[in-house]
Every structure is written in structure tokens, then in C-alpha cells.
């Protein structure tokens, strides 16, 4: 969805690491045990995880595809936060395929190769149905702030623009933009909308605002509207930036905005977004490392590091790229309860309307 936006470079990382180390040294000298080892202040529940985490084998966090330098930058900040080196890897791929794979491993009594799975609320339903997630309220027990929790066992780690519509500011006048979802069926947009051919992006989430009947009519109309259907989300950005498409659906433009690309979200109201959450995977060999990773993402420091290195964050920090990209839109979340209740049914209905199984 978005990309690396590290504008400060390794020098800033070094300063940050040294800063934590210095602060830790001072605090340790002053006799504050929870700030020993050069780390940040931690709740006792989190601190209690550290000794066991140090003895665990490496843990793999599955969610976004993260290039090596971005992962290294993020991990450096996390290590500094905790005061020791966490042996973690970050990887991404096809979420439902990985969920099916983990379920197979668990069925055969083999420890999964994924320890923490972070994904959208909708995909979480697939993971939950596959029975691969820890359902105990581990996140709540860690003391994660309630506004950073989606459920007691799911930490909110980023806000996704999947439900939004984007446009190229150099090729489309803001006065011409759609003001309602139905405006997409205007002949002027025929053959000029790029979208991944998935039912669970903008279509599903915006049903919360406009209702199922109107959305179904829109999808059916779009099937005869020469939409530029693409296989992967990044391809939508390519079509939008090249001018082939005037509008793109289900595209996160944060990373491109950070590079100065002439893109913006279309201010159709209500402007809805949806969150991603971090889960623990059952049978993990490194549950404590996974909890530390997830907890770090629930903190302001972790959010800042995630946004700067990986390009994603929640909108809580007004200085983040995510918050800036949403500026002026008045975004609101699609409620998790509504997603849980409607996701599978609507996904099936819309998939059928789109000619998908």
C-alpha cells in the first residue's frame, strides 16, 4: 500500500539509539529498574516478557512485504526501545494462502513458521475461522491502551486507505471529482477507473455508508464500465500516475505522496478507513518475542518507527504520513463489529457480482 518514507536516514537512527542508550544509562544510575538496559519505560507486564524472549528462537512477523533496509531501520529502533536485540524477521505475501499453510502445519503438529500475523480486520476473520490465532486476551493483559486495541487479542497497528478513492491532481480538476459513489457510473469515468478486482476493498467497506443495495447496483454498473481491473494494488498506482486512469479504488497513496507524487484522495463523504491488527499465532515457538513486537507497535515510539521505515501507521500522530494523507477528509473507521458481522456475506455477494468465485 505505501512504502518506505525514511527521510532522516541512518544518522537519525544512530542518534535515536544513542539517545535511548544514554537515557537508559542515566536511569540505571538513578536506580530505576524498569528503565535499565537503556530501554524505554515499560509496564511490568511487558518487562516480564523480556527474559523469556531473549531465550526464544527467532520469530517471524507476517503481514506487509518489507524491504530489508526498512526492516533493519525499524528493528534498530525496536531494539533500542527494549534495550536488547530482538531476533525477528518481517515478511509478507498472500494472507489467505499463508493462513491455509499455517492451518496445515498445526494439523500435523508442526510449529508454524509465523509467530505474529498482522492483517486487516476482514482477513482476521479468515484466520480466526482457520483456528490459527491465539484468542486469549493477551494484548489487554499486556496493558495496551484501549484505543490501540481492536479486540483484547488484536492490537491496532495501522489505518488502511483501502476503502478510499484516489485521483491524479495534475490530470483531474477537483471540481470534476465524484461526490458520491454512484458518480463513478457517469460516462466521463468509463474506462478511466483502475481497481484491483477484489470484492473486499472499497466496495465492501463503503457498504457501511451507502448500503448493500446501492453498492450492488454500483458494482453491477461498473462491470459494464470498462474498469481497468489490475491484479495487484501497486499496479493501480502505476495506472493512475501514468494518466491512463483518472481514479483509482482501494489504493493507499501515502508512500507516493511522501515522494511528491501528484495524488490525493477524493473527498467523498463519509470518508471511511479500516484498521489492521496484530495477532499471535497458536503454537508459536516465540510468543514473547511476538508480544514484544506487537506491543512496540502499540506505542507512539513504535508507530513513529513503523511509519518512518515501513510507511504505515495509524493516523493518531498528526505528523505521520498517514495522518497527513487523510488531512481534511474527516475520516472515520468502519466499525469492527460491522465488519465482523457482514464481511463474509458481502464478500460472497460482491464476488458473485464481479464474476469471481
Amino acid at each position, binding site marked *: 500500500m505505501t*512504502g518506505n518514507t525514511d527521510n532522516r536516514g541512518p544518522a537519525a537512527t544512530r542518534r535515536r539509539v544513542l539517545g535511548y542508550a544514554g537515557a537508559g544509562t542515566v536511569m540505571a544510575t538513578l536506580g530505576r529498574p524498569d528503565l535499565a538496559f537503556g530501554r524505554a519505560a515499560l509496564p511490568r507486564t511487558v518487562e516480564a516478557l523480556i527474559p523469556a524472549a531473549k531465550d526464544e528462537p*527467532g520469530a517471524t512477523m507476517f503481514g506487509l512485504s518489507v*524491504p530489508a533496509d526498512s526492516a533493519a531501520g525499524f528493528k534498530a529502533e525496536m531494539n533500542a526501545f527494549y534495550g536488547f536485540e530482538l531476533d525477528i*524477521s518481517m515478511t509478507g505475501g498472500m494472507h489467505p*494462502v499463508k*493462513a491455509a499453510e499455517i492451518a496445515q502445519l498445526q494439523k500435523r503438529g508442526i510449529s508454524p513458521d509465523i509467530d505474529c500475523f498482522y492483517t486487516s480486520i476482514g482477513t482476521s476473520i479468515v484466520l480466526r475461522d482457520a483456528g490459527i490465532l491465539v484468542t486469549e486476551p493477551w494484548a489487554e493483559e499486556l496493558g495496551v491502551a484501549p484505543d490501540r486495541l481492536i479486540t483484547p487479542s488484536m492490537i491496532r497497528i495501522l489505518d488502511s486507505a483501502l476503502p478510499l478513492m484516489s485521483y491524479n491532481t495534475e490530470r483531474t480538476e477537483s471540481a470534476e471529482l465524484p461526490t458520491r459513489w454512484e458518480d463513478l457510473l457517469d460516462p466521463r469515468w468509463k474506462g478511466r477507473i483502475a481497481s484491483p478486482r*477484489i*470484492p473486499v476493498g472499497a466496495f465492501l467497506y463503503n457498504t457501511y455508508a451507502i448500503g448493500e443495495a446501492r453498492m450492488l447496483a454500483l458494482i453491477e454498473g461498473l462491470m459494464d464500465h470498462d474498469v481497468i481491473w489490475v491484479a495487484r494494488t501497486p499496479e493501480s*498506482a502505476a495506472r493512475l500516475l501514468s494518466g491512463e486512469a483518472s481514479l483509482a479504488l482501494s489504493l493507499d497513496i501515502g508512500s507516493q505522496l511522501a515522494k511528491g507524487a501528484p495524488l490525493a484522495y477524493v473527498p467523498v463523504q463519509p470518508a471511511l478507513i479500516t484498521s489492521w491488527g496484530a495477532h499471535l499465532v497458536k503454537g508459536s515457538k516465540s510468543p514473547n518475542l511476538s508480544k514484544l513486537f506487537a506491543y512496540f507497535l502499540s506505542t507512539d515510539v513504535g508507530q513513529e518507527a513503523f511509519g518512518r521505515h515501513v510507511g504505515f501507521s495509524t493516523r493518531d500522530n498528526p505528523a505521520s504520513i498517514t495522518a497527513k494523507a487523510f488531512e481534511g477528509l474527516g475520516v472515520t473507521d468502519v466499525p469492527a463489529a460491522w465488519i465482523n458481522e457482514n464481511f463474509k456475506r458481502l464478500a460472497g455477494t460482491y464476488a458473485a457480482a464481479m464474476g469471481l468465485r
Partner: protein
Amino acid sequence: MTPGVFVGLMRSIGVSAAALLGVVLVVLIVASLSADSRIGQWTFANYADLFALPDLTPVLKRTLAVGIGTTIVLMGLALPMSWILARTKFSGRALLLFLFAATLTIPAFVTAMSYVWLFNPNSGIVNQALERLTGRPGLFDVYSIAWICLIQGLKLTPPAVFMMLPAFMNLDAALEEAAAVSGVSPPRAFFGVVLPVLAPAVGATAIFFFILAIEIFDVVAVIGMPADIDVLTVLSYQAIHTVYGPPDYGFASAVGMPLVLLSGLGVLIYLRLLRRADRFALMGGKTRRVEAKDLGGWALLAWLIVVVWGLLTVVIPLFTVIWTSLTPFLMPPSPAALRELSFASYAGASALILKPLINTLLLIAAVLCLAIVWSVCLSWLTTRIGAASDRAMDAVIFLSMAVPGMLLAIAMQFLSLSAYGWLPLYGTIWLIVVTMAARALAFATRTINSAALQIDRSLEEAAYVCGIGPVRTFFGVFVPLVRPAIGVAALVIALVVSRDLAIPLVLYTPDAPVLATAIYDLQSVGRYGEAAVLSLIVVGLLVLCAAGARAVAVKNRKHEEEMT
């Protein structure tokens, strides 16, 4: 070693490959007959769903059209190019080989994307230029089956040439000399003498690439999907890439079965060609070596073919990659965009290259070792022993190419999970090695078979008569004679392994990234510039490797000639 023991040894090596791919095929057939991807819950529901698709007939027609169209384009280019390279003193030979290597290193979706930028009806650069000249908008529309066939045909020409080249090189020079003495022009000699004589190799290549053309997904994803040009691979892709439920492997496998059936038809034709192979043996004890001939006035036509093909297949996509590497974000070429160009992406990408590069080189080396050993053994068995079991193994290898790469990877993952207790390959780079080597077998065995078919068995029989054992005969006669074919197979496998994404994407581990997954990761997060730089580095390195390999081959050939 007695001949019986030697054949047994070769068979045990061949069986390991054929059994692996045979099990994969069985897994897919069983999956297609299972409910909810659960083995043992038998059902025809997946096939019922497939045949209930309202647009199944158009999908099948489109799939056939893509296969036939692509094969026509690529054979139309590959045949003259093979002949030019193998039989003439064409002065652009080095350039053509360089272009071939470069083509194989550029991912097909990059080539397809370049054509979208140039020829899409809304904002295609060529269309806009023509609109300014003619006043007519959207003269070209890239979103059609014809363009898919053209782009796939252009991209697949180099491996097709590499597959046919050994056969062309082994052709007895006396045949063409007789034609020339009789006053027959080079093109007429090509169609009237060369082509009929090389029928098995040419036929096998055409069948192979027909199947490949309907199995690959990259170009269809970029050009077919936006225009609703659904083919079988699109259905398969959608079944695996579910977004709201578990992947539907059963339906994906059922969709793959028409491809397997088409491959089966190809195998039957191929086996028929093999039965008549003795009639086409061209290299015997008395065969004359190739003597390259002057093209004369036809050289201009040869240059035209090479330049046009190079422009369409290498220059346009390579320019796109270079352009993307210089821009801060994706932007089409324009005078205004020139002001934005910088080398900023190069600094970021250089820090990312080392580990994936080392892993990729190790992967290439391991895949090459395994694939070449497997394929030489299988080719020797098929073309020299030819027992029913050997032909069955060859048929299994041929059939396996109908399985899309991603489906093969998923089947291999399933197998590795099942066998985890006694063979813990799951989650290691070795699983990728075995899968990629197995994937390469269809191409490698076809390439080596086509060369081996044209080597008369009398050469090996003479060795046996002289009392030379089977091992020495194999390494002293068979292997040296098919060495050019082994070389081109190795080159193509290395180039393809370096950029193949479908298999590593399913099987790779984050601790062992390869170049293809590193590029994918960068693209996924919108770092197109750095992804382009990595692609350029790959292109540069592989072209250097290919040039180095060619230099060594030329040196060896000179040395052999001097020794002779």
C-alpha cells in the same frame, strides 16, 4: 560397470525426478476431485463448477487463441533466428546473443507494462503522438488478444531459439550445400530442406511453447485482466488468490486440468515424432560439420529482423526500467518529467543488493546442478534406451509443464509438509531449489532431447564395439555431443531462475531473500525506483555472465578446432 547397472543407475536418477513431478500431478488431480481442498472427501463439484461457468467456452477459445497466436509469432521469429545463428556468417551474431540474454532477464510484466504506457487508448504515448498528427484518438488499443500474443511471442523467442539451436547446429552441411549447388536460394533452402529435416525438433519446440504460452500469467495479468480477457490462467489465479476465504486449490486444480489435457495431446504428438526420430538423425560418423555461409544480400533482411525484434523486446522495456529508476515516482516520459530525473534510487538500492544477490547465485548454482543432472539422464534414457518406462517418464516431465508455477509451488509445499517427518525440506531454500529444478526439467529435457535425437546412435555403438564401457561412452561421446544443448539449457535456466517470482513467493523464507522477492517487496511498498535499479543490476550482471559463458565457449571451440 556393466551396461545393465549403468542403465539402472540412470533410471534411478530419472525416476527421482519423474516420480516427484508425477506425485505433484497426482496431488493436483486428487485436489481437483476433493471438497474444500480436503483429500479424501471425493467430489466432482469442482468440475461441475468449472463446466457451469457461463463463459467457459469463450475462456477456452481465448486460451487457445493466445496459445496459437503466441506460437505463430515466436516460431515466425525463432526459426529464421536459429538458422541465422547456426548456419550463417551473420555479423550481428554477438549482438543477437546479447539481446537474447537481456530479454530473459527482463520480467515479462515489465515488458507488458511498457507497452501499456505506449499503446493504452487513454494516455498511451504513441497514441497521443499520433493523435496530434492525425487528430484521431486511441489509434492503438493494447488491450487485445493480438497484443498479448505479440508480446508473449517476442518474449519467448530467445528460449525457443535456444531450444532449436543445437538441432540447427547439428544439421549436416551437405544438405544445404547440395541445395546451394542446385541454385536454390537460402530462404528456399531453409523452407524446402532445413525445415522438413528438422521437423522433430521444430515440432517439439512449437508444442512446448504452445503449452507454455497458455500457462504463463504475467502478460495476461497486465493486459488481459484490465480488459476482461479472461483465460484459464486467470481463473486459476483467482482461485488461489482469494481475498476473503481459504484458497480454493480444488477449483484451481480443476482449472489446470484442461491445460494438462492439452499437454497430454502435445505429448502424444511429441512421442509420435520420437518414434520417427531415426529418420531425422543428422550427426553420424560421416556427417560433415557445419560450415557457416555468407548471407549475401539477405543479410539486410536478417539485420532488419534482429533490429526490429531487439527494439520491441529489449530497447522499449529496458528504457522503461531505466526511466523508472531515475524518476522519484512513476511518471510517463515527457519534457516536464526530464527535470525530475535523479539518481536518488541508486543509493537506496545499492544497500539492498548483496544478500539477495548471493542467495540468488547460490540458488542458480544448486538448481543448475540438479536440473542438468536430471535432464541429461532423462534425455539419455528417452533417446538412447527408449523403453516404455523411459518414455513414460518423459511424458510425465512434459505433462508437468502444464501446471502453473504457483500451483506447482503450492503442491510442493503440501508435499514437503506431508513428508516433513523424514525429509524436513519445508521452510528451507532447498525446497525452492528442488521445485525450480523440477520446473526447469520440461525445457531442459526438450532442449537436450532435440539435440540428442539428431545424433546417430552409431557413434555410441562404435564405442561399445571398441570395448569402451557405458560410463566412458556416456561421458566421452554422448555428453560432449549434446554439450551445446546442455549449455543453452543451463543458460536459460540460470536466467529464468534469477528472476522467477512465482515459486520463491510461495516458498521463500525471510532469512533467505532472493533478487526476485527483494524486487517484489520494493514494488509492493511503492518503491518503484529502487525496484527498477535492482532489476537493472540483475540485467547487467546476467548479461555479463552470459557474455563470459559465451567467451569461454568460443575459446573452447577454438581450442577443439586447433586440436582437430
